[in-house]
């Protein structure tokens, strides 16, 4: 037996239901909320502010700093102690790398833009939800961006390539039918820039055949283009009424 039906009944290429909105944190210069299934991220942008440690300054353009953080009750198990972990520091860094290619911060030399991403609940795909929220928040803040960035986690679960894997699929062997053979639990988060047709984030945890790996890229693009529309719609909702 193989992975014929997804645990939650979705089609293999189907993403979970999404919700997106901007302007949720009034104190910030830009902010957004992005929810996919039970994974939710809130992103708020502050700055640009002048940066004083000389080492961090870039005299040609502003720099982007991202801070990804799961709230203590956001994990599936017990409480997660607050404070950065190695995992959150790494996710913060790959988030910066996913977003900075689209940003034009040449108007802000010697300054830093700070994006804070907090997650009140997660069900896999959290770094991708964070990137989706952060991208909307940066646009909401009025920064120059070549495009939004959309992100999704593709999975190789059991023996199938699936879009938007959830926690159970990430732990397939724990939840699969007893008689089914052990299968893949591979997680591939991707971030995609539609205007450039390029990926700005790619990671993989687990084994996969080269053919399936290449197939995940096609699925990631398609899924990201759908998410892109959701993100744009959220921005339009806020600014639409300004049209005269």
């Amino acid at each position, binding site marked *: 037996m193989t992975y014929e039906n997804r645990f939650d009944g979705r089609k293999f290429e189907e993403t979970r239901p999404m919700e997106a909105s901007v302007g949720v944190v009034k104190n910030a*210069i*830009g902010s957004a909320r992005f929810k996919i299934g039970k994974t939710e991220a809130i992103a708020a942008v502050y*700055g*640009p*502010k*002048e940066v004083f440690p000389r080492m961090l300054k870039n*005299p040609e353009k502003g720099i982007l700093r991202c801070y990804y953080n799961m709230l203590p009750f956001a994990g599936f198990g017990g409480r997660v102690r607050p404070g950065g972990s190695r995992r959150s520091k790494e996710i913060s860094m790959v988030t910066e790398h996913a977003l900075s290619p*689209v940003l*034009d911060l040449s*108007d*802000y*030399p*010697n*300054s830093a833009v700070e994006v804070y991403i907090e997650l009140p609940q997660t069900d896999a795909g959290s770094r991708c939800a964070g990137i989706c929220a952060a991208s909307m928040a940066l*646009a*909401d*803040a*009025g*920064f*120059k*961006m*070549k*495009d*939004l960035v959309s992100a999704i986690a593709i999975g190789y679960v059991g023996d199938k390539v699936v879009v938007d894997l959830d926690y159970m699929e990430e732990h397939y062997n724990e939840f699969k039918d007893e008689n089914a053979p052990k299968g893949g639990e591979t997680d591939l988060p991707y971030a995609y820039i*539609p*205007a450039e047709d390029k990926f700005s984030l790619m990671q993989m945890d687990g084994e996969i055949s080269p053919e399936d790996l290449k197939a995940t890229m096609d699925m990631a693009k398609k899924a990201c283009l759908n998410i*892109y529309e959701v993100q*744009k719609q959220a*921005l*339009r909702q806020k*600014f*639409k*009424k*300004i*049209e*005269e």
Partner: protein
Amino acid sequence: MGSLLIQPREIVLPGDIIAEGMDYIPGKGTYRKDEKVLAMQVGLLSSEGRVLKVIPLAGKYAAKVGDTIIGKVTNILMSGWVIDTNSVYHGLLSLRDGVDTFVPKGANLTKYYNIGDFVVCKIVNMTSQMLIDLSTKGSNIKKLSEGRITNVTPSKVPRIIGKSGSMINMIKDKTGSKIIVGQNGIVWLKNQDPIMEVLTVKAFAFIEENAHIRGLTDEVAKYLDNEISQLKGV
């Protein structure tokens, strides 16, 4: 040849394809990719001939030479005062540009401007490295000594002032408030009547919410008349 896919005065988002073909020229807030012009910022599309631009609807105040701003003193140096301009970069008000009279050596600079003071000043110079020079020369009001400071969204300042000051003057008339609007979104106001003062601030909020409406000045006038008559009725 070329075609415009989005009409001027419509909202554009980063990555939106505004035009196809080499006919159109990418101006501020847009860029060219292959044979297309794309938007780079959330804003209103505008066109001047074949040049396409985006008027940003959000963002921190972008300091420019000639602007009159209300700044806050954050530090005092030998050479003058460091000013928070409400933009990304701080400004400097030199002794010479901040004080009309001669400043003797060893003078106590706090008696001119102290930390925490709000100052009405003009941006007279900006370098490419974003050093901002300010001056109070030529203005009657330099240091604000009474009244209240509030913030408005910098991109809404033109609406709050109105064409040739029509909006702000109408608000001053109806509320009796004294108002100075800084281009940087910092606003000073003062009114003997505290209720009228609160109403003035509410008028700013009304403008921010409804900046997109046509005939906004009339709408704000109606809003104020309404509020005032309700207050009188109490």
